């Protein structure tokens, strides 16, 4: 039933997407197409060759939108036709009449230059810039909507493919691939998806804006598009680098930096001719992406769920690894009430309750924040989420003195500016013998997401 519903949604979304695409294309390319002598949209066949050469020379220098060039070409053709006929009626032969008519119009360079001055006024440039900005905004909304619909379609298709049709073969392929894992709770994944949608929206917005700018300012799209694309890309790059605050990963940073690239590409790639999408190849690419996504999804989340329980796992070797932080003061069995607000960017709050009398024999009680990695000794898939300290580091990344209230010890760590995602927090103290001990066997593990701008990420420490 659920699959049927999803298929119905997909079936409805396809015509909506297509209509949207057609609408964006037709509204962005306002005006009649440039007359092509091949299609005979404008009849200049009756004009002498030298007149057509002249008109082509003028047209090549106009640097205006196609529809305006078409208007001017037709108007000058009409004029030459009348002028040549009138001169011929005065007794000159056709060739000399054509030469005289062209001489009266002056050089193609001068005529084109004066035409540009007449049309490409500063007022129209301002109007074009304003229109371009408005149409960029409209195109962005259209693009975001289209990309979201497309994303939903791909997700639905991939889900259907994975859950019903291809689960067995994809699972088999995924099982053969090297083990890789992603954390489905990783908030940077949301940033990647959002940034991908924004890439599509930026490309459509740039294209629509550049074409509107060209139309209103009476300039050739190929002339204004580089300015539009580079200016927009520069603004977006600045926003991405220094302003937009989001959960980050290397992938999300890469995709976020692709947004200005997509904007520039949207403005620059064949902006005056349109893009004819090969729909067959697009559909094929969609299927391939869905299959690859399906394999990735299964590979990342596992093709089977085991029944491993915490009790069944021998963790003594893991506890032994923690001794590199400090040896365990065996008598302690504290109650941990730690929490990590990963949704807010990785603020870890730790709270530990210990017997006050016991604590009186310790001093310099503190929490130590260590980088963590999945424990290699964990059962396949590490479904229990067992982590050990990262041996690449010899010391904790941060230390916070325990804030003590009765028997409760608390500390907070701001993890937003670290690229690492997994952390272990140990409670340690100096014992009666002057040595430092950890006061718990198992530390609390935390998951965090980097939160900041792209620049923050690039300049952050691991």
């Amino acid at each position, binding site marked *: 039933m659920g699959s049927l519903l999803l298929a119905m949604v997909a079936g409805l979304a396809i015509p909506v997407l297509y209509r949207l695409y057609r609408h964006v294309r037709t509204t962005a390319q306002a005006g009649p197409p440039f007359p092509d002598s091949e299609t005979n949209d404008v009849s200049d066949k009756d004009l002498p060759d030298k007149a057509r050469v002249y008109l082509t020379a003028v047209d090549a220098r106009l640097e205006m939108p196609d529809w305006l060039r078409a208007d001017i070409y037709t108007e000058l053709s009409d004029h030459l*036709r009348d002028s040549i006929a009138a001169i011929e009626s005065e007794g000159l032969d056709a060739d000399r009449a054509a030469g005289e008519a062209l001489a009266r119009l002056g*050089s193609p360079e001068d*005529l084109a230059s004066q035409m540009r001055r007449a049309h490409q006024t500063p007022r129209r440039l301002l109007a074009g810039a304003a229109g371009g900005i408005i149409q960029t905004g409209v195109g962005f909304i259209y693009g975001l909507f289209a990309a979201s619909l497309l994303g939903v379609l791909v997700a639905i298709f991939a889900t259907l493919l994975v859950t019903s049709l291809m689960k067995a073969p994809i699972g088999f392929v995924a099982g053969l691939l090297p083990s890789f894992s992603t954390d489905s709770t990783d908030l940077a994944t949301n940033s990647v998806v959002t940034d991908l949608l924004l890439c599509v929206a930026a490309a459509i917005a740039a294209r629509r804006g550049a074409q509107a700018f060209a139309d209103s300012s009476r300039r050739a799209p190929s002339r204004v598009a580089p300015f539009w694309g580079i200016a927009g890309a520069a603004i977006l790059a600045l926003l991405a680098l220094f302003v937009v605050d989001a959960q980050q990963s290397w992938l999300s940073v890469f995709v976020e930096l692709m947004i200005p690239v997509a904007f520039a590409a949207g403005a620059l790639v064949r902006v005056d001719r349109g893009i004819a999408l090969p729909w067959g190849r697009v559909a094929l690419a969609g299927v391939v992406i869905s299959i690859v996504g399906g394999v990735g999804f299964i590979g990342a989340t596992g093709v089977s769920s085991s029944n491993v329980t915490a009790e069944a796992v021998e963790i003594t070797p893991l506890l032994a690894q923690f001794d590199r932080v400090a040896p365990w003061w065996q008598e302690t069995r504290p109650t941990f009430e730690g929490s990590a607000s990963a949704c807010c960017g990785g603020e870890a709050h730790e709270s530990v309750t210990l017997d006050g009398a016991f604590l009186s024999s310790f001093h310099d009680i503190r929490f130590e924040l260590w980088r963590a990695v999945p424990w290699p000794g964990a059962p396949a898939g590490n479904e229990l989420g067992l982590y050990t300290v990262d041996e690449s580091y010899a010391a904790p990344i941060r230390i916070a003195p325990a804030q003590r209230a009765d028997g409760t010890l608390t500390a907070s760590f701001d993890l937003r500016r670290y690229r690492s995602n997994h952390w272990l927090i140990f409670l340690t103290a100096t014992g009666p013998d002057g040595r430092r001990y950890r006061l718990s066997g198992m530390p609390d593990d935390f998951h965090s997401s980097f939160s900041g701008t792209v620049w923050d990420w690039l300049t952050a420490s691991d």
Partner: protein
Amino acid sequence: MGKPSVRTQLLKGTTPLLVLTVLRDGELYGYEIAQRIRERSGGAFAPSEGALYPALHALEAEGALQADWRESDRGPRRRYYCITPHGGALLAEHERAWAEFSIGVGRTLGEPGRG
């Protein structure tokens, strides 16, 4: 390219005035406008055809003229121009300026004889 003739130089600034004047009587297309000016001047002058179309397009951009493609009685469709209310006001302004200018030029030219 040779030096522009005195007549061409004199005509240069008057093209908008001449165009607006002949269009006051009704809509015309480009070639007709040039012909009408030639006729009304008794063949004395006509605007450079190379300057005519830029002038027409500039006046249209300014809102003084409105242009429409229309099928003509004979031959292909043509671009007809007609004067707008703003064009009418502009023409009045041009006429006033020209009157003052021509009187001033006339007085200046007449001064040696008077002396």
